[in-house]
């Protein structure tokens, strides 16, 4: 019983930690996005609330929470209420099987940096993400609004369609790793960048990765595949009739999905928490170096008299970065912080890609969208899978 209790206890703690981090990340991800896009477009972005607009997410949350929770008449009430709940819960559910790092020892407890590991982890994620369609579809339908309905329909069609190439793209690295468990998947990619699935073995899964990323954009309804919520034509798509926290739920679901997908990409193709090169080559120093450089940069800019508004924040951040760089040097935390760093770095890079694309590319037309997946993406993914499976069969004898 004790073991059981401790298992539940640890799991609960892990869940709490993950949830807290995740929700914060979600909130700040939006800020980051606004910032990134703003910088791409050569403008400052949020800047008022807090230093560099750092408190903007908090303000947003307060705003959303305090807004009137509007329940339009003529909607199908139960489903209307169910839809955002479904969307956010499905989005968050998949996090539960994603490993952030290896087994660690925290005091007396030895545990994985993962809520739970399933034999069929990948399938679980696919299953959960496929359930996510319901949220959007139902939202569109239950709103009893033609724009919403069209948005919902488009969204579900799009998601079903892109799920196919995505699954096929996932299958290829799975073949190479020969497992469905995400943890084992990462383990199989240990040993440097050339063991990652994206560059692995006889057939590097670059194509797979690209397909996966494209499909991921579509799955998350992100630009350039954000047809379901195309403001210009559909007002706002499936969430036209939603407001306040219900709207926020969809928003959060979208960003949660982004994180999930990025994490998936990391795990499947980029070796998860594994460092790109061996420790011997100084892999452990990389975060320290990065944060140190960041600290130097911050201090340098903070010293710039022209930046009046940042004259206090930048030096503070510089010092914080230095501290972090120092922390990374501590052997006690290195064992669990370094994997986390690598994981976060890779995921963050992909998230950055999402934002970058959003800032850069225009939106597709709907028929182009569907045609693209069925006529191009799907065959290519199929071919890729075929070649991969042949090569895998060839090499493993």
């Amino acid at each position, binding site marked *: 019983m004790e073991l059981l209790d401790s298992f539940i206890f640890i799991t609960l703690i892990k869940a709490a930690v993950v949830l807290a981090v995740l929700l914060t990340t979600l909130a700040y991800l939006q800020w980051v996005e606004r910032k990134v896009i703003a910088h791409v477009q050569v403008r400052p972005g949020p800047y008022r609330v807090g230093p560099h607009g750092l408190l903007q997410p908090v303000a947003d949350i307060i705003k959303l929470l305090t807004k009137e929770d509007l329940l339009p008449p003529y909607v199908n009430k139960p*489903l209307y209420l169910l839809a955002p709940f479904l969307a956010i819960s499905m989005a968050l559910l998949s996090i539960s099987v994603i490993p952030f790092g290896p087994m660690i020892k925290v005091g007396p407890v030895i545990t994985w940096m993962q809520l739970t590991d*399933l*034999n*069929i982890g990948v*399938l*679980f994620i*696919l*299953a*959960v993400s*496929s*359930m996510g*369609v*319901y949220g959007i*579809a*139902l939202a*569109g*339908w239950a709103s009893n609004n033609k724009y919403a*309905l069209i948005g*919902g*329909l488009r969204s*579900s*069609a799009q998601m*079903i369609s892109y*799920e196919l190439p995505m699954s096929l793209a996932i299958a290829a690295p799975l073949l190479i790793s020969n497992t*469905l468990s995400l943890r084992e998947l990462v383990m199989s990619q240990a040993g440097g960048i050339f063991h990652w699935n994206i560059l692995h073995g006889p057939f590097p899964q670059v194509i797979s990765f690209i397909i996966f990323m494209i499909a991921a954009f579509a799955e998350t309804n992100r630009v350039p595949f954000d047809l379901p919520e195309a403001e210009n034509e559909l007002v706002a798509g499936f969430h036209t009739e939603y407001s306040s926290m219900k709207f926020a739920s969809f928003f959060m679901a979208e960003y949660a999905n982004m994180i999930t997908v990025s994490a998936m990409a990391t795990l499947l193709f980029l070796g998860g928490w594994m460092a790109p090169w061996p420790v011997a080559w100084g892999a452990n120093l990389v975060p320290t170096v990065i944060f140190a450089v960041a600290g130097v940069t911050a201090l340098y800019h903070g010293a710039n008299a022209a930046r009046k508004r940042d004259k206090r924040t930048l030096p503070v951040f510089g010092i914080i970065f230095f501290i972090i760089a120092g922390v990374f040097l501590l052997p006690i935390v290195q064992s669990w912080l370094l994997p986390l760093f690598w994981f976060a770095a890779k995921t963050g890079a992909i998230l950055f890609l999402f934002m970058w694309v959003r800032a850069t590319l225009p939106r597709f037309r709907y028929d182009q969208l569907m045609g693209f997946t069925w006529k191009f993406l799907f065959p290519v993914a199929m071919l890729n899978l075929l070649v991969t499976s042949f090569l895998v069969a060839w090499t493993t004898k």
Partner: protein
Amino acid sequence: MDVILFLIFAVVAVVCAINVVVQTHPISSALSLVGVMGSLAVLYLLLGAEFIAAAQVIVYAGAIMVLFVFVIMLLNAGAETKKGRSYLIPGAPLLIVFLGLMAYYVQRYLFPESAVVRFGGFTGGGPKDIGNALFTTYLLPFEVTSILILVAIIGAVVLARKEIE
């Protein structure tokens, strides 16, 4: 623990199934059906059928039912009208008898209480086992189903496409 899990999801499944039948609006029925499938997926897990559970969710709940929902939305189907003859009178008694007999036979003859299910009592339902069986013993049916799927795709495309004048 297993019993509780079973009971919870069995009750959910039954309630959802009843809902499927009772709800007048197809979309409610569809969502209830999703519920049934979800519960069944859990029960599959309980029975050690991991792969099938995942497939259940992906294929059934994630694809087939989405298709249903999609079609319902597309046709904007409303609640059904009470038209045409009702089969309640011949059907309901028959059904009750059917169910009673089935339950009776199952309980009384086929599977006495001694045969039980424990979680983890069977672990042969993973992807690997399924794959092994699928590509050895059941290779031919598997290939046949792939043909079937192909045919179904063609059929669906032909049926649903716009009439070319």
